[in-house]
Structures are given as structure tokens and as C-alpha cells.
């Protein structure tokens, strides 16, 4: 293996107004897709190249090299930054509010899980063991007095979760949309609540990141990016049908799922206070020792 920086640092050399954006098939990326499809980015004098990458974990290392802006989650942002990877949040994506939760802890009544305390001695399927949802759930369970070491954790890919729960291979599951819709269709499934909302009444769990350098050197570009997201958000609110068509186009989900999906609440705002909540939670449940200056994690806002 050769030394660091083998990749091509394109953001330095390329046109700063051309953004290479990476995201997964989460509905959180809808505004970006809408902004592209409806010419909103063009209106803000931004050129974009969109790439779908399902494995968000590889992206912090890739921003500044293969991509300029990428979808990520607060826990990833914090750990990556703590390990010396120079990333920063440039925009918000979604925020969970009580009326519109996006994360779920679901128990199987058959397995006797209808409240968090029942999880002791049971198997809990999670999306990513190090992910935002699981960090939040752990904090929640801890507050409920659950002995975390008594819960067996396994990773289960979202699409397989419904089967695993109904076949009894796992007794409870942490999940997000759209998988939750499928799981909750099973009468045995008990919705125990949104783990995010147990941390704060309103919490952002998905956001956009970029290389820290890029974030500090291109405030104009970021401002325009956010403005485009805001405009897309308005468009989505007003044109539900068209927006869902875009969602279908990039996720490939079946029509029934598209129609049944409740879209998340979008925000382009960088919510530093939410990052603080995440950092505190990680320190509480993850032995995350370091304190860090959250200001370095966000792009300058103006």
C-alpha cells in the first residue's frame, strides 16, 4: 500500500460550482433529486452529478476525493472527525418531529416484546451496529433501566427485517422508513416508539457533509446549495405527486410503497444543538471519551 492521499483531490482543482453529490436511497435525499430534476440547482448556478451509494460508511473518506458533498449521519460525522478525517456538516437533511417519526423500535408480541424492558434476554436486529438509530436506542433502553448486556444485537439488512421478525429469528428490530411500513403491517408487531425522539423532542439524524476545507473556502457555494434544498423542499410540499415520482425514480421502490410512504420532515438548516445531543449520547452509551469542539464540525453559517 502506498501513502495517504492516493486519491485525486478534485475539489481543489475542479470547478467549485460543480458538485459531485453522493447519497443512498433514503427519502432524505429527495430534495437533492428534486432540485436536480426540476432545474433548481441550475437556477442557483450549480452543476451537480448525483451518485447513489448504498454504503454510507465509505463516504467520509471519499468526500474531497470522489465526491464533494455526501449524505451522512451525525454519529458518523462525529466519529470520522474524531479520527482525524476532515469533514464538516454543510446542510441539514431531515429532522424527526413527534408528528412525523422516521425511526422505529418494533417488538414482536409473539416473542413477548411490547415494551423496552421486555428486550432483556432477547435478540434485537439493528441496521448498523454503529449507526445513529442504534446509538439512540441504546440511550433510550438505558434510561428505561434495561440491562444492555442482556440484549443480543445482530445486524439485519432493512429489506430482510420483516421476514426475520415474523419468523422469530429476531425478537425486535430497529428500523427506518420505508422498511418500517412493511414490518408494522404484521399484526404481531408492536411499535415501541421513535428512538430519536427519546433523546430530544426534535432531532435531526441525517445531514449533508463535505470536506472541511471545501466548507470553509466555498461559503457561497454552500449557501446556494442550501437555498436550492429549501426551494426543493417547498416544491415537494406543493407537488406531492411529482415529488413521489422522483422518489420512485431514484429508489426504484414499488408503487405501493411509494404511495404509502410518509415523507420525512425536511430541513436544510445546520442544527449544531442536535450534534451536541448526539455527542452527549455517544459519550453516555458508547464510551466515547473525547470532548470535541462542535464548531469545527459545521460549516460557517451566514
Amino acid at each position, binding site marked *: 500500500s502506498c501513502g495517504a492521499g492516493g486519491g485525486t483531490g478534485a475539489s481543489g482543482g475542479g470547478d467549485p460550482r460543480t458538485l459531485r453529490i453522493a447519497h443512498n436511497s433514503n427519502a432524505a435525499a429527495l430534495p437533492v433529486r428534486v432540485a436536480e430534476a426540476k432545474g433548481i440547482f441550475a437556477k442557483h448556478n450549480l452543476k451537480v452529478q448525483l451518485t447513489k451509494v*448504498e454504503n454510507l460508511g465509505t463516504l467520509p473518506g471519499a468526500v474531497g476525493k470522489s465526491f464533494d458533498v455526501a449524505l451522512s449521519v451525525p454519529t458518523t460525522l462525529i466519529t470520522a472527525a474524531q479520527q482525524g478525517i476532515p469533514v464538516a456538516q454543510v446542510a441539514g437533511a431531515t429532522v424527526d418531529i413527534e408528528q412525523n417519526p422516521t425511526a422505529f423500535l418494533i417488538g414482536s408480541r409473539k416473542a413477548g416484546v411490547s415494551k423496552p424492558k421486555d428486550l432483556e434476554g432477547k435478540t434485537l436486529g439493528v441496521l448498523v451496529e454503529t449507526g445513529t438509530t442504534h446509538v439512540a436506542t441504546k440511550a433510550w433502553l438505558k434510561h428505561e433501566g434495561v440491562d444492555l448486556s442482556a440484549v443480543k444485537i445482530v445486524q439485519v439488512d432493512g429489506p430482510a427485517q420483516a421476514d426475520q421478525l415474523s419468523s422469530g429469528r429476531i425478537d425486535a428490530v430497529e428500523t427506518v422508513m420505508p422498511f418500517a411500513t412493511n414490518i408494522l403491517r404484521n399484526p404481531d408487531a408492536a411499535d415501541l416508539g421513535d428512538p430519536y425522539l427519546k433523546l430530544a423532542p426534535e432531532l435531526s439524524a441525517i445531514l449533508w457533509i463535505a470536506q472541511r476545507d471545501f466548507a470553509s473556502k466555498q461559503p457561497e457555494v454552500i449557501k446556494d446549495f442550501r437555498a436550492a434544498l429549501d426551494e426543493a423542499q417547498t416544491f415537494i410540499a406543493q407537488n406531492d405527486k411529482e415529488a413521489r415520482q422522483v422518489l420512485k425514480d431514484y429508489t426504484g421502490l414499488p408503487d405501493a410503497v411509494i404511495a404509502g410512504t410518509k415523507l420525512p420532515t425536511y430541513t436544510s438548516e445546520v442544527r449544531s444543538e442536535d450534534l451536541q445531543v448526539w455527542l452527549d449520547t455517544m459519550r453516555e452509551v458508547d464510551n466515547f471519551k473525547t470532548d470535541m469542539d462542535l464548531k469545527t464540525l459545521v460549516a460557517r453559517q451566514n
Partner: protein
Amino acid sequence: MAELWRRINVVGVAVFVLGLVVWEVGVRSGLLDFAYLPQPSDVVSGLAELVSTGELQTALTHTLTAALTGWLLAGVTGVVAGSVLGLVRPVWRYSMASLEALRALPIVAFVPVAVLIFGFSAQMEVVVAWYAALWPILLNTINGMGTEQRMLESGSVLRLSKAAVLWKIRLPAATPMIVVGLRLGLSISLVLTLVAEMTGNPAGLGFVLVSKAQALRPDEMFAGVVVIGVAGIVLNGLVMGLARLVFRGQMAAAGEAQ
């Protein structure tokens, strides 16, 4: 015509189809009742859809190009390095243990590193495919170099040069083994190209598998899986066919003639 029928492996295909029928019956009878596991007939319609959008063709071409490039590179490097290691004792003595240690490293864990170095590119997939396919080819070549003593003596008695002994005796004698290495390497490079696409470069059939799974389309996902399996059959058939054609004598001597 009869020749054609003899070449097509009717029984083999029948057994394969039988396997599919068992699967279909299993799902239909409710014995296997999972949303994630479709029945073959659904997979067929999923396949039709993948084909009609052209998604399959692009993805398959991408994946096969990467896997085959990696495999070919592994074939060349593996056979050359294997011959050197098998024949030149000092080289073997002073490097084999390193290779044995490298060989045991889980390539999957290197996908993120490969992404860092090569970016989200087909190049990264080729490297992963090459690395994975290299070892079986290398090991089989080294092992195949242990030629029957009497044959080597025949070579020296007939005053063949060192190069001629390698070319006319050692390599042909090792051919069946090398072909085994190549066959193993082929499927391994295919599988690891897919892993590289699933966890790294978002392209090709591997990415189709994950994104179709995320899109809650198990029928299309399994269509992808079946296509990969069939690609495995076809590629292997091609390799064996080619080997039988090019190395007719070696394959016949090894009992591999059709």
C-alpha cells in the same frame, strides 16, 4: 446435430431445472414463506423487467469486464510467479511465507482502503478481483511444477534447454492443475467483484443486488443472483471448452476430454 446434442449437457441442465422446480414448489406450498425469498416464477418476471430497462445488460457488462480483467491479470501474474516460485528455490524460500501471510488477509476488509486509493472506480474492482483470484492460481501452479521425475529426465536426456523443459514438459504437465486454479480464480474473482460493488463502487450487478434489496424488490434482486450463477456456469463452460481446445492432449491425459 447429434454432436451438438452431445455437447449440450442435457442431464446437467435438467438437474439444475429440477432444483428450481423444488424451490418453486417450496414457496408455492407455503413451506418457505418469506417476503424476502421469492419463487422462481417471480424471479423470471423480475428478470424480464431488469432486461427490458436495459439495467441488467449494463450492469452485467460492467461486472464481467471488471471480473474478467482482474482474472486475466491474475492468470498471467499467478502462472508466471507460480512458475518462478515453484522452480527457483531461493525465491520460494525467501518470499513464500510472506505470500502465505498476505493470502490470509480478508480482502473484504480492504475494500474501503481500495476505495481510498483507487476511488469509486472499476479499477478498484479489478484490483480486488485480481487479488482474490491470484492465490488459487499461484498455489496450483506452484504445486503443478512438481513434475514426475522420469519425465524431466526424459527432457534432459533429449537435451532440451531449460526453457524447453519448462515450456514442453513442466507447464504442460501442470496444465490440469493450473486449469483448476483458473476455474477457482474465475468464480472467486466474480464473487469478490460483486462484494466490491456491494460495499464499494456503486456499479454493476453487485450494486443492482443491494439497491434492489433496498428498493424492496427481492424478485429483481434474486434475478440478479440467478444471472450471476448462470454467468458462472457459462464462464466456466467457456474456460473448460477453451482449455480442451488449446490443451487437447493435456486435458485428454487428465481424463478431461469430452
